[in-house]
């Protein structure tokens, strides 16, 4: 199964991880797939986490790797982070690093502006 779905909206790549749990079992394949996307030139990405119900620090580490791959010229926003997923962003203070928007529309709007 593919680790993610990708669509485009107003020049922004919208990446949707398809797994329910973005943990140590799933993070390596997801990270590789998105980093390849970044290396192919997609530097503005929305990560839509609406299908992900659980995130651990391995999954979060993958998101940080993707952010670094996008570099200072890139931008990443997160949307639809709820429950245990949002809890991990807050517990690790990564909510200060990733802009977390309530909806895909808001996240794309932020990066497309």
């Amino acid at each position, binding site marked *: 199964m593919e680790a993610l779905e990708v669509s485009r909206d107003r020049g922004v790549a919208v990446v949707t991880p398809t797994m329910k*749990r973005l*943990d*140590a*079992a*799933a993070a390596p394949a997801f990270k590789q797939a998105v980093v390849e996307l970044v290396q192919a030139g997609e530097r503005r990405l929305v990560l839509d986490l609406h299908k992900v119900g*659980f*995130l*651990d*620090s*391995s999954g*979060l*580490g993958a998101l*940080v*790797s993707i*952010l*670094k791959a996008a*570099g*200072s010229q890139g931008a990443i926003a997160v949307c639809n982070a709820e*429950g*245990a997923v949002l*809890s*991990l962003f807050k*517990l*690790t*203070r990564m909510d*200060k*690093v990733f802009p977390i928007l309530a909806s895909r529309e808001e996240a794309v709007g932020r990066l497309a502006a």
Partner: protein
Amino acid sequence: MEFLVAATHEEVSRAVARFGELLPAGLQAQDGHAVEIAMAEILTNIVEHGYGGAGGPSIRVLWHPGERQLDVEVWDQGRPIPADRLSAVRAEFDPADLAALPESGFGLELIRSAFDKVEYEQGPPYNRLLLSKKVS
């Protein structure tokens, strides 16, 4: 309840999902999330650092979700957590310093913050992590 979890990421993933279903009914949602996350960190640490990612004996988890308290024991036979890591302070970082953002190292902090009591007895032959969380 006793669980034997094979030392692979896939089996850890399944086991943690099950623990998430077996939280005490009275535990607040946010506390439950923190406990489920901490269980993922504990078991993943054992697979990656205790057993060096090369597999090892199954991890034994005793899971007792009481009305007033959740008690958990985790037994493994891998390399123990170094004592200095157990007492490590919270990982500080500058959110604006992209290159220096940490990609790992949150696990022990997440474990300590999720539970009210964390005790560790190191082997050989067994390492035993004792955890408890009050249900308010």
